[in-house]
Every structure is written in structure tokens, then in C-alpha cells.
């Protein structure tokens, strides 16, 4: 139907609903360690050309642009906000935070690119094989794998700023591994898969894994965790904006409906 105002308002309503979903998810994760807030990007849709007759009049004036009307908006995508969250002291020896743009690398199912996922949440623990794993229900193994020998308590593990993992327990002092971090050309294009994990995507570019000190991957800080970077004030302001914009769009929808009704009643019966 040529009456596109209804559809234009509807696209606005549905895009704003997506925005609401993302804001709700951000706020729900205001206390999730290593969480990165997302934002919704809106874009205008195509424009309908309507070349009404009479644009060229008797004087030969040609209007360079035709008559056009847009058909609404769409969500072009969600984008991660990769601002660093505040670092919070936890006094847990296997809690590590990254100050820089790198990600920890963990092992996931082969269905994901390279079988790897990336995370900023550095709350690690030991599994039954004494390997360092992510301290969540899935226990993803850190890559490269680092084992803490039997009989060594967690507090004896020392992680240096450049990611060297050492143990010093009584007489024993040895290096047991080296943390490596991943960086991406466009980290905002990573695909979130839940569980604080992200996987490589076409948009993110190929992963580059290496030593923390190289290419600004970051400094490792032991006993700290990176808190969520969600800023509740910004989110709430966005929430208010979204709600109001929603109302305006529904009003436009109502107006279009009323106009349609008037037009529909143009014909006189009898």
C-alpha cells in the first residue's frame, strides 16, 4: 500500500524495541565482571521516489531532486563498547585483569573459528587436572594451557605484569607458563556467545595472539578483576530517550491511522 507512514512508524517502534532489549541486557550485566556494554546503531531505510507530474512546468524549470519520502529506520547492528571497565581488587591469586586492549584466549568447541574464544573476564580457577580454567560452569581451559603442580596452593602462584606465571612455595621457585593475549583489528566486531566469551567474526578480523607486552596487548594485573563497563547513568538516559521516542512513533502511527480512517470514510452512502 502506498500509505507508507504506518510502516515507517512501525519500523521505528521495532527498532526502538531492539534498543530497549539491549539497554535491559546492559543494565542486567552491570555487575558482570569483564562485561562490555553494547549499543544499537540505527540507520535510515531507503527513500521512496515519487515523481509527481508537474515538476517540469511551462517555464522549463526542472527540479534536480525528485520528491522523496523515507520509509523508516532499521537497526544496522549492535556494537560493543570496549572502554576498559574499572579494575577491582579481589585478593584472589587467580584473578587477573588486563590493562590494554587484549583478550584472554580459552578453548571452546570446534564449531567456533579455531576452536577458540576470547574474554576479558579474568576470574580463573583450577580444574581437577590442576589446569587454569575460567571459573564458570563451563570451565573453559586457558590457552596456552598452564598446569599448577600438585601440592602447590593457589596463593603460591604469582603472575607478573608481562604475563609470566611463576610459583614460589617454600624452596620451590619455577616458571610454569606464560599468558598470551589476543588482539583484533576491530574488536567491536567480535561475536558474543555468552558466558563472557567472544568469538572471531569476519568483521573483527583475524586474531593475533602473542605476548602481552607486544603491540599494546596490555599489562597483566594479578589479584584484580575488570568490572563491567556499563555506565548506569548513560543507560538510564538512553532508556528514557527510547521510551519517549517510542511514544512519538506510536503517536505518528495513530495519526496515520486516523488519516486513513478519514480517507476511508470519504465516500458518501446513499
Amino acid at each position: 500500500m502506498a500509505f507508507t507512514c504506518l510502516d515507517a512508524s512501525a519500523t521505528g517502534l521495532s527498532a526502538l524495541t531492539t534498543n530497549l532489549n539491549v539497554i535491559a541486557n546492559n543494565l542486567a550485566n552491570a555487575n558482570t565482571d569483564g562485561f562490555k556494554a553494547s549499543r544499537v546503531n540505527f540507520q535510515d531505510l531507503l527513500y521512496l521516489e515519487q515523481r509527481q507530474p508537474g515538476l517540469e512546468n511551462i517555464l522549463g524549470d526542472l527540479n534536480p531532486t525528485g520528491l522523496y519520502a523515507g520509509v523508516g529506520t532499521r537497526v544496522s547492528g549492535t556494537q560493543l563498547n570496549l572502554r576498559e571497565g574499572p579494575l577491582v581488587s579481589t585478593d584472589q591469586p587467580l584473578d587477573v585483569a588486563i590493562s590494554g586492549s587484549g583478550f584472554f584466549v580459552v578453548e571452546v568447541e570446534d564449531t567456533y573459528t579455531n576452536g577458540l574464544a576470547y574474554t576479558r573476564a579474568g576470574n580463573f580457577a583450577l580444574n581437577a587436572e590442576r589446569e587454569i580454567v575460567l571459573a564458570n560452569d563451563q570451565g573453559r581451559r586457558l590457552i596456552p594451557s598452564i598446569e599448577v603442580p600438585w601440592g602447590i596452593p593457589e596463593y603460591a602462584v604469582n603472575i607478573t605484569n608481562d604475563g609470566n606465571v611463576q610459583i614460589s612455595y617454600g624452596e620451590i621457585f619455577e616458571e610454569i607458563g606464560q599468558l598470551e593475549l589476543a588482539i583484533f583489528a576491530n574488536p567491536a566486531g567480535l561475536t558474543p556467545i555468552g558466558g563472557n566469551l567472544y568469538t572471531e567474526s569476519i568483521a573483527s578480523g583475524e586474531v593475533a595472539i602473542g605476548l602481552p607486552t607486544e603491540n599494546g596487548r596490555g599489562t597483566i594485573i594479578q589479584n584484580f578483576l575488570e568490572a563491567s563497563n556499563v555506565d548506569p547513568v548513560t543507560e538510564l538516559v538512553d532508556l528514557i530517550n527510547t521510551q519517549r521516542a517510542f511514544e512519538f512513533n506510536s503517536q505518528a502511527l495513530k495519526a496515520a491511522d486516523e488519516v486513513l480512517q478519514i480517507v476511508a470514510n470519504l465516500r458518501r452512502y446513499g
Partner: protein
Amino acid sequence: MNYGFYQSATGLMTQVHRLRVASNNLANSETRGFKADAVMTSQRLPARLEGNMAADPQWLLEQLGGGQLADPTRFVMAQGSLSPTDGELDLAIDGEAFFMVGDGTGDASSIRLTRDGRFTRDPDGELAMLGTGMKVLDGRERTISVPMGSITIGPDGLVTHAGEELGRIGLVTVPNTNALHKIGDSLIVPTPDAGKMTVDGGSTLWQGYLESSTVKPVLEMAGIVEIGRAVEANAKLLQAQDLLTGQAINTFGKVT
């Protein structure tokens, strides 16, 4: 046929067009870099003049004009407010200029303008638009490579990484912004009528900011109220003329 009938119909159609534009504006009230469209209307010329027909003019009717006509849609080049986003590759323009984007092949016909400064590194390592993936160009229509790591973009568009200059984002203006044509996805086509694009020195870039939509919900809502009344008035007149015609037929066309 009843001339006024069509006069009212053009009024009705123009109002519907206005409503369409208002709905699109409101739908894009959260679209970054969006410029609100404005509808101008003008009196339509009578059909004889419009079609350049040589028919005998009916002076009485011709003085009435031909109803209402919507002029080509223009967008208002007002400055949107800048809001901070923390994004390193989020840029906002303060001024009249546009970003120049293209496919990077140097093909002049692929060049589009935009005010949407949500940029990213594309898989080729070049600065590109987030939504469409079109590459951001410098003043000489070349792409700009951005390595990983922190990027600084100065108010004049100079892109630097660790003290090394990588290029300067091209900010351009055209003499006739009325001839610019929106094609969606925040892109604007510089039509030949818009004139030659020139690098603009008067605009400043803000890194870490985005320009908000220039849609003013209050004005749009006020417009919608007005449109509603205009539709009603035109519809009432249509009905009145229908009534008159009906009465005329019934009065004068009576058999027996």
C-alpha cells in the same frame, strides 16, 4: 467535472505526503547523523499550464490554480547535538561538512557523503563506516589505513598512531546542499546539481563523540496535529462537493 473536487484531492494527497515524511523523521529520531526532512508545498499550476496544452483557457478556473503540490523534499542541514560515546573511532562533525566515503577504488561515481561518524577498522585494516562498510576517504579520495592500537584523530581530521601520521579524513562541502539526495543507510548522493565538492576548512571533528539526529519531536508532533486537521478539512470539502453534486443531480435530473 467538478473542478474543486480535484483541488481538495491534491490537498489531501499532499498532506498524506507530509505525514509520510513526519513518520520517517520520527522513526529516525535516534539515528546518528540523521538530518530531518522538510516538506515545502506550493500552489500547483493549472493543468493547462502544467501540461503546456494549447486548449482555450478558462480564466475563471485558472485563477484558482491547480490545488497543492509538494515541492522536492529537502533536508535541513542543521547541526545535531554532539553526545560523548567513549568510542575511539566515533567521530562527529561540528560544522557544515560531510565525510566522504566510497569503495576505495578511486571511482568517483561510487563516492557518497555522510554525517554518520560511526567508524571502524574493516578487515582490510582501513577506516570504514560501521553500517555500510564503505571506506572513509581523505581529501584526495584515498582510503586511510589504521593499524591496531590507539588512534588519535585531531579536530582537523588528522589521524595519528603513536606519533605517526596516517592520513587526514576528508571533510567536504558542496555549494548547493538542496540538491543532495538521501538514499538511506545514512548515505547522501552528491548529484551533479549540488556542485563541485571542496575540502572544507571551517568544520571541526570531535573524536569520541557522535552527532545526534536533528529531528525535533515537538515540531514533528505539532506538524502531525496540523496535518490531521488539514486532512479533515480537505475531506470535509470533498464530501461537501460530493453532496452538492448529488443534490444537483437529484434536483435537476428528476424524471417526471
